[in-house]
Structures are given as C-alpha cells and as structure tokens.
C-alpha cells in the first residue's frame, strides 16, 4: 500500500516543480503570479505533511469525551507545522495581492501584460 504521506509529499514536490517551471517560462505576467501561487501551495502541503502521524487526531483537547487528556495528547498529530503553515499562507497571500496590483498598474500604463512587451522584465 502506498502511504498517505508518500502521496502528499510527491504531490507537494510536483506542485513546487510545476510552479517553478511556470514562473521561469511563462510569458504572461498573470500566469507567472499564478505559478508562484501554485509553488506556495506545494510548499504549504509539504510543511503540513511533515507533521503527519498515522491514525493521528486533530490537536484539540475535548473536555467532554471519555478519553483522558493524557490519552488524547498521545494521539495528536504534530501541531507545529500547522502553525507554520498558517503564517506561510498569510504571507503568500500578501505577496500575491501586491504582485497582482503591480500587474494591474502596469496594464493600465502599457496596455499589455506580456513579458516580451515589457522591456524591463527580461531576466
């Protein structure tokens, strides 16, 4: 059987590579930003999967459940990567918002979002 984490890690790697490829080769600026987003998505999936434990439970203590607190604690997944991803998602969102605004401004000035027409964007 292929394990859950194998699937998730492979997915995240594929997403990161796809995103990277898109950023490097796409000519339409909006697609570059979308590729960046895909790359961020891959990274976030990677981070969350690091905390995965087989048959783990969500890391929230419930007060009205038969299992004792210690019992609940022993079966929780690792909560730290989830906290890291929370921050990473927000940061990625902020960058995407600003990038898209830059594109909108450029479009307004030049009427185009293709890299070839924007002299300054040759790598």
């Amino acid at each position: 059987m292929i394990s859950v984490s194998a699937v998730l890690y492979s997915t995240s790697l594929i997403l990161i590579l796809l995103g990277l490829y898109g950023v490097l080769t796409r000519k339409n600026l909006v697609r570059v930003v979308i590729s960046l987003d895909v790359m961020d998505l891959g990274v976030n999936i990677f981070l969350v999967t690091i905390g995965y434990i087989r048959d783990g439970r969500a890391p929230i203590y419930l007060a009205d459940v038969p299992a004792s607190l210690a019992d609940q604690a022993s079966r929780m997944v690792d909560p730290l990567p989830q906290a890291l991803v929370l921050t990473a998602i927000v940061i990625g969102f902020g960058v995407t918002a600003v990038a898209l605004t830059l594109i909108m401004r450029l479009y307004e000035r030049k009427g185009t979002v293709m890299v070839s027409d924007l002299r300054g964007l040759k790598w």
Partner: protein
Amino acid sequence: MVSPMLLIAMPLGAAFLIVLLGSKMAARIVAIATVAFLAVLAPIWLPAAISEPFVIVLADVLPPLGIAFGLDAVSAGFVLLIALSGLLVLLYSLPYIPHAAEFKGKEKAEIRYYAIFLLLLAGAFGLVMTKDIFNLFVFFEILCISSYLLVAYSQDERALEAGFKYMVLGSIGSAFMLVAIGLSYRLSGSLAMADIAKALAAAPYSYSTLVSVLFVLGFGVEAAVFPLNTWLPDAHSSAPSSISAVLSGFVIEVALAVLVRLSLNVFSGAMLSVLGVLALAGVLVGEMAALGQKELKRALAFSSIGQVSIMLFAFTLGSEIGRWAGLGQLLMHAGAKSALFLVSGYFIVRTGSHEIEAYRGLGRKMPAAGAFFAIAALSLVGMPPLLGFFTKLRILEAAAAAHSAIGYAGIVVILFATVIESIYLFRIVRTLYGANAEVAASGAAGGDLPAFAWIAVAGFVLLVLVGGFMIPSFDRLLQPMAAVLATI
C-alpha cells in the same frame, strides 16, 4: 536596562500609529521620533551586548518551545548601523520624498512611505536579533516585502517592472527557504538554530547539503549573491534614492551577514567555498558592468554588486581576520554608498535626468553635493587616508593570510576591480566638475542640497572621512563582532 524588544515593538507601533492618524506631519514626526529614540538607545545596548549577550525570553516561554531571541555582539553592532542609517535617511526623506515621484494621490502615498519605512527597519532589527529559523523567515519577509513596495514607490513604468521582478525572485527564494525550514524541523524537532545546527551536523551528507543549498538560494536573492542578483540594478535605479541608499547601505548587507552566520554555524560548511567563488565572479561582473553604464544610479547599483561581493569573499575566507575585514568593508560601504545614492537623488531632482552626461558641471553649481560625492567615491575606491583604504587593505591582508588558491585569486580580482572602479568613478567626478559648464547643468534649478539632506549626507560622509583615523575604536567593535559571527 531597557528591553531590546522595543526595537521591534516601537517601529511596529509607530507604523500602526501613522496609519491611524493619517496625517503627513504626524507621520514625519512619529517616524523621526521613533528612530531617533532607538538610535540613542543603540549605543547604550552595544557595550552591554558585547560584554554579555542579552537573552530575551518571549511570551515567558523558553526555547525550544518558545522563540530563541537575543541581542549579542553581532546583533548590537548591526542594530546601531541600522538605526543610525535609518535616522539619517529619514531626515533626507523629509525634503526629498515630495520630489521622488509624480502621481495622483502623492499626499497619502507619503504617509504610507513613512509607515513602510518603519516596518523595513523593524524587519531588519528582527532579522539580526533572532536565533530561531522560522522567526528569521517571518522577519525576512517583512524586510523583503517592505523593500518590494518601496522600490515600486514612484509607480512609473520602470519602478513597477523593477518591483515586480524583485518580488518574483524574492518569492521563489522564500518558497525554497520554507522547504529548508520544513526539512530542518523534520530532522531536529526544533526551530532553534542551535538545535538545528547539532542535528544537521549528525545528519547524512546529502540531507544537510540539500537544506544548505535551498537556504542559500533563498537568502541569496536578497543578499545579492551572484547570479541571483539580476533584480538589483533595476531596483536600485528605479527606487527613490533614499531607498536605494537603504538597500545598498544595510538591507543587502544584513541579509549577507545572516547568510554567512548561518553558513558558518548551522548549515554545511561546504557552501562557504562555493560562495567564495560566486563572490569573486560577482566582483568581476559587477565592476565590469558598472564601467559601461550611462546612468549614474545604475552604475552605482553595479558597483554595489561588486562591493557586496568583496565583502562576501572576505567572509568566506573562513578566518576571523577575514570576517573582521568583511565587517569593516561593510561599515565603509554603508557610509560611502549611502552618501553617493543620496547625493545622486538630488542630482536627479535638480536636472531631471538620470544620465551622467547631464550632470556635467553640476559639481560647481552644487558645491556641497559635489564635494560629498567626490569624497565618498574616493573612499569607495580606497584612497588613503579615507576609511575605504584601510578596509580594503585589510581584506587583501586577510586574503593573503589564507594561503589558499582562492585567497590569491581574490587578491588579483580585487586589485583589478579597484582599477576598474577608479576608472568609472573618476570619470563621473570629472564630469561633475567638467569644464563645459554650459552644456547641461545650466538647466538645473534650485540650489544645492536642502538642509536636512545636507545633514544626512554629511553624516554618512563623516563616517568615511574620519573613520580612517578612528580605526582603533572601530576595531573594539568589529573584533568582538567577528568573533561572535562564528558562533550561533
């Protein structure tokens, strides 16, 4: 003793306050007051941090559960540099920013400039103080995003394009850094740099190499490591000159110092040799490219690439003398390059042009600006008795003391670069004082530098002017910093 957490809390609070109040006058006063206050505290923290590093406990939770944070010799030295540079550039911004751009909504934009500038400072302070790798990432992002925004500030076509390119490259780097952080956590179970260092040392070679490479790719964009620095010339030349000064003056250098410190202590040491070779390549590429530039700010930007690469080379020699020399060069570059960019800002304002030819004779019309420019340029080249001579000499000494192939190669490259630098910098200075005064500078309106700008530039030039005579006092700061740089 006042808590160094104020270095984070005050700029953040001030930025929130500025947006809350929404008035230009309030923005200026709050910004200057905050940075001035921190600039006064910085020299008080410095000797204390050198003798005994501050260990700061956050949220009353100790590492590894909490965030490892502290102010040691390296942090305190950089804090002083950042605070003073920030204060001087803020003073310069007061008269300069209204000229920096022409677009509708300029008034409110100026308020946002001060808020974002404060956040840039907060990011830089946090970056040097943190000893936790994810916290490093967060402050790094704050620093980066503030720079992206400030580069695009003037919103003309070039600035928007430069900002976009910078942003995309930086974001790729951040993604790689996050993967490196994830891998480090998986290996060590902790986010504190000390724990990660121990775990990586014991890890299989391939694992630690992957983590190191990813991390260098991430930080390398911001630290302008060749070949990840393609964003630099466009960003520096399109940004408002105060921001160019800040970027070349300490932002790139802080990123570089953190990169070096982590490469020395946490990630695999093999990266250092690779970085050394890349550094030499960067020196050559940067200086040669600067030679052919017709626009002043672009020439200065390429010169920054070269100078930062010289610093990186010194750091990668692996010896304490090398680090000492690199830190000295860092200090000198902060002073000289900031002055050059600030002065060029007013050249642009007065003549309306970015091209060096348009400044012919400008040195006579703006005597103070011209003199400051000439002194800073001479220091950059390394003419005695300015500070630049001593710092460059020290780097050459360190390279010779390394007795390695790369050390000797470095000496050759740096000497060659010095020749190139002197060619183009002297050419610019000659143009400034050119004989044909009627050619271009007659179109220059207004007088010399306004008062606040004058004070700011004078501050930076003072550093390189008298620095040569203050080497012993600098050494009392630089030597502990060089030693602590090799620890985590």
